[in-house]
Structure formats: structure tokens, C-alpha cells
């Protein structure tokens, strides 16, 4: 009887403790939270920061004749075991490159194509074409082709460290290619390595 009461009290305490796990906001500016085996926003922040600094610091984006390069985003491959939207990396990189004043990004081609560019051009030949003022529809030959392309890859290696721990290595690789000559102007790799319990899932 006594054991049964104690058991019921223990279950009650368990439920109460679970109910106390309140939701809190993450202090993304100074997050002192524990690292996790999977990629989290801090890893993308670090990788993006290192990539942008390397790219800008190399001088590869400084146009000799002045002005800004037109850059398109090429293919960014996610070769990790996680479902990652590569925009988590590229949105930050593109934003900083745009703000640097050295590059203007293209939405006409590449993986960040804005379909609306082509939809609005199709209006001329569409059934509702007469509804639009022809002068406000983009004429032919207005789009500007990119001069540079940024492409890359994120991949993961899982290694058994010892009986209880695993090592997960995440590689972020980016490269900038001159689309006229095919020459590679810049490339960089950032490694983020984590060691943790075998029971942690890194995908």
C-alpha cells in the first residue's frame, strides 16, 4: 500500500516536472547554450562570417575597372545527412556581399532565379497582354548576364571516435568562378567539428 502511494507520488512529480519545461527565447546574440551534434544556427553564422571575410579580404571581388560585379548564385549542394536549406548559409553570404558594395546579385539566372522576371515578360504574349501598358512591360535585351558565380557544397563525415563517442565533421566549401573565362577567382573551406555521444543523432 505504502509502495503504491509512493509510486503514484513519483509519477505526479514526473508530470509536474515535465510541465515546468517552459519555452524560452534563444539569445541569438550571446547564446551560451550547449552545442548540439547537428548543425545549428551558430554553425551557419560562423561559416557565413568566415566565408564572407575570406571572400572580401582576398580582393577577388574588387573590379579593376571600378563598379560592381554581377554575381549569380550557382548550385549549393547539401551532401550532409540533414535536411538543410542551403539558404541558411547563402542568404547571409549574399546579404553581406550585396552590402559590401562590391557585388550585385542576379535574380535572372542561377539557383535564386526569381520566376516573376519571366512571368512578367510572358505577359506580352498572353491572353491578358492587352490589359497591360506595353511600355511598362520589360523589353527584350534588358537582362544583365552575371559575370561571376558562387557555388559550393556542404558535406558531413561521421567517424567513430571511441566506444561511446562519435566525431562529426562538417565541411562548408564555396567557390567564386569568372563566368567569362571559367577561371576560379576564390575558394574557401570552413570546417566545423563536433565530438559527442554515440546516442546523439547527427542527421
Amino acid at each position, binding site marked *: 500500500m505504502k509502495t503504491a502511494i509512493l509510486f503514484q507520488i513519483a509519477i505526479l512529480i514526473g508530470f509536474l516536472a515535465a510541465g515546468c519545461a517552459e519555452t524560452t527565447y534563444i539569445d541569438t546574440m*550571446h547564446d551560451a547554450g*550547449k552545442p548540439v551534434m547537428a548543425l545549428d544556427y*551558430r554553425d551557419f553564422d560562423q561559416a557565413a*562570417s568566415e566565408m*564572407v571575410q575570406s571572400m572580401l579580404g582576398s580582393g577577388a571581388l574588387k573590379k579593376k575597372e571600378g563598379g560592381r560585379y554581377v554575381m549569380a548564385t550557382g548550385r549549393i549542394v547539401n551532401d550532409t545527412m540533414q535536411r538543410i536549406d542551403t539558404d541558411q548559409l547563402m542568404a547571409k553570404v549574399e546579404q553581406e556581399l550585396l552590402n559590401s*558594395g562590391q557585388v550585385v546579385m542576379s535574380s535572372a539566372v542561377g539557383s535564386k532565379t526569381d520566376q516573376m522576371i519571366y512571368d512578367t515578360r510572358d505577359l506580352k504574349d498572353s491572353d491578358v497582354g492587352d490589359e497591360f501598358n506595353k511600355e511598362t512591360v520589360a523589353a527584350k535585351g534588358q537582362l544583365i548576364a552575371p559575370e561571376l558565380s558562387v557555388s559550393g557544397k556542404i558535406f558531413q563525415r561521421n567517424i567513430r571516435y571511441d566506444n561511446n563517442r562519435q566525431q562529426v565533421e562538417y565541411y562548408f566549401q564555396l567557390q567564386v568562378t569568372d563566368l567569362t573565362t571559367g577561371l576560379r577567382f576564390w575558394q574557401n573551406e570552413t570546417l566545423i567539428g563536433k565530438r559527442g555521444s554515440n546516442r546523439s543523432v547527427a542527421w
Partner: protein
Amino acid sequence: MKTITNILLFAAAVALISCDEPQGSKIHLRADVKSDNLVDNIVTRPVAYAFSALIGEGIEVTDAVLRRNQAGLLELNVNGINHSQFTRKFRYRVEWLDQDGQLIQTKTSVWLRMSAMGKSTFSFKVVAPRPDAVNFRMDTRKWE
């Protein structure tokens, strides 16, 4: 009298190891690589480590040089020394200021990791994301 002399000699040896700063020498041979000697050996080394922890030796930034790179962006080169016998891991964040002293909002101002081995120099470079950056401020914190 003999005991006091021995203690003083031992303390002097520990102090000598603690003062073994790497600046000035291009080649740094560490313990377990170089030969042991009278002041730095298998007996005195643990004491030196304990002493280092006791007096709380840590990181010192000796140099922070600003220059404009070929792309016209400000570049901060930070050099420092880890006075501790232990490897010190820390995070740093550099924020950039414009000519009015206002903060430049950028995704590159995040906490980045740095690790400096015991009794070693270290260096890192940070590049400003915009040409209008004219100054900086840097903060550090423990790497959890």
C-alpha cells in the same frame, strides 16, 4: 636553513618556467619535445602548471593593427600571447563602427572561436564587411 634554500630554489625554478614567454623567438620547442633542463623538467612542470592556474594567467592582446586592404576594406590584425600554461579557448566578436561612431549592422559580427596553446602567441584577422567602417570594438568571452 637548507629547507628554506631548497624551497627558494624551487620557487625560482617555477618562476623561471612561468616567465618562459614565447615572444621574440620564432621557434617554440615545447615540453616533451625539447630536452628537459634544471628549471623545466618532469618534476617542476606540474608545479608550474599549478602555479599558472593559481595566479590566473591568461590571454593578453599585445597588438591590434588596423589597415585598409587592396579592396578598400578595413582589416584588423590581432596578435596576442597566452601567458597560461594551459590551452586557452575563447570567443571573440568584432563590431565595426562608421565615421559617426555608429555600429554597422552586419551578419559577420558573430562570436568566432579561437584557441591559443599554453605559453604561445596567437594571431587572427578580421575583415570589415563595408568600406565605410573606420573603427572597431572587440569583445571576448569564454568558449563554453
